[in-house]
């Protein structure tokens, strides 16, 4: 089935975006990326450790012939820092795409949505394709879209929490009203969480910890690939309505019953 995800004119056949952090090794990460079938992975931008050799070693473990690199601005707490980091990422990666994060609080890692909208506006004007990590607020999603975001990426739950989709209703509202792709970013714990996100209508799912932190990351990556695919199919198929009482699946007429004798 041909059902591509298109963001800012770029076509992806895979609807799963995977991170590159926290794997036990680069080799395990590479195996997980392959098992997930991903065509886009996120990376962070950091100062080179000048005491260690091997700067840029991460990229040697990513098959950039079919995997697109999406630099993030993780760890930025102001719009200015996020814009600065995005520009450095563009220079390092030679692509104008950015997963924009402006974090508002260290403990929850929830976004500072006011600064996020401002940074989105600045980067869009600067020619970036901006994919902002946001909360599950439909109003903020609309503001991000108005600011020129190429997709909106609401969280399912706090980053790294593995709690799954906490506000399915909000995500559905965001999707129904969005004119750009909606990628559920963060909070996935296991395969069913990814399937739920896709069943709600999300255009894709972004995850890192759920795969990198699993006991067997490549195996979990394969599970996520299947879950995202299954969830997408279920969404397209159109699920039945929820009802509080039973509705028989078998005909109610023609039953073989014991005849009631009268008299």
């Amino acid at each position, binding site marked *: 089935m041909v059902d591509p995800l298109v963001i800012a004119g770029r076509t992806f056949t895979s609807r799963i975006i995977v991170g590159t952090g926290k794997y036990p090794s680069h080799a395990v990460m590479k195996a997980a990326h392959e098992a997930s079938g991903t065509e886009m992975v996120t990376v*962070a931008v950091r100062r080179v450790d000048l005491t260690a050799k091997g700067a840029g070693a991460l990229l040697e473990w990513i098959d950039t012939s079919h995997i697109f690199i999406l630099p993030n601005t993780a760890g930025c707490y102001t719009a200015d820092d996020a814009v600065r980091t995005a520009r450095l990422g563009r220079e390092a990666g030679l692509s104008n795409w950015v997963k924009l994060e402006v974090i508002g609080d260290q403990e929850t890692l929830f976004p500072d949505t006011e600064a996020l909208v401002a940074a989105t506006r600045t980067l869009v004007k600067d020619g970036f394709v901006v994919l902002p990590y946001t909360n599950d607020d439909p109003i903020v999603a609309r503001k991000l879209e108005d600011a020129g975001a190429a997709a909106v990426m609401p969280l399912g739950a706090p980053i790294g929490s593995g709690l799954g989709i906490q506000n399915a209703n909000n995500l559905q509202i965001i999707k129904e009203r969005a004119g750009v792709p909606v990628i559920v970013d963060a909070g996935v714990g296991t395969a069913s969480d990814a399937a739920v996100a896709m069943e709600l209508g999300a255009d894709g799912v972004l995850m890192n910890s759920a795969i990198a932190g699993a006991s067997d990351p490549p195996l979990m990556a394969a599970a996520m690939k299947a879950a995202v695919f299954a969830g997408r199919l279920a969404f397209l198929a159109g699920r039945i309505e929820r009802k509080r009482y039973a509705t028989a699946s078998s005909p109610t007429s023609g039953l073989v019953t014991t005849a009631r004798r009268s008299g």
Partner: protein
Amino acid sequence: MHVMLNGEPTELPGPMTIAALLERLGIDGRMVAVEYNLTIIKRARYAETTIEPDAEIEIVAFVGGG
């Protein structure tokens, strides 16, 4: 010559270009981005950008992240 390199006070033997600094540090210029006094320096200009005393230099690269 004193500069700030990735936030650390650093002594360099004398004026040198960004390209020479990267070579001195053993860094592949194709894998990093360089900011010089808050301005990003394009790769093509590494060899023609000379570092002045007290410059602030940031050298960044991609690392694992979500």
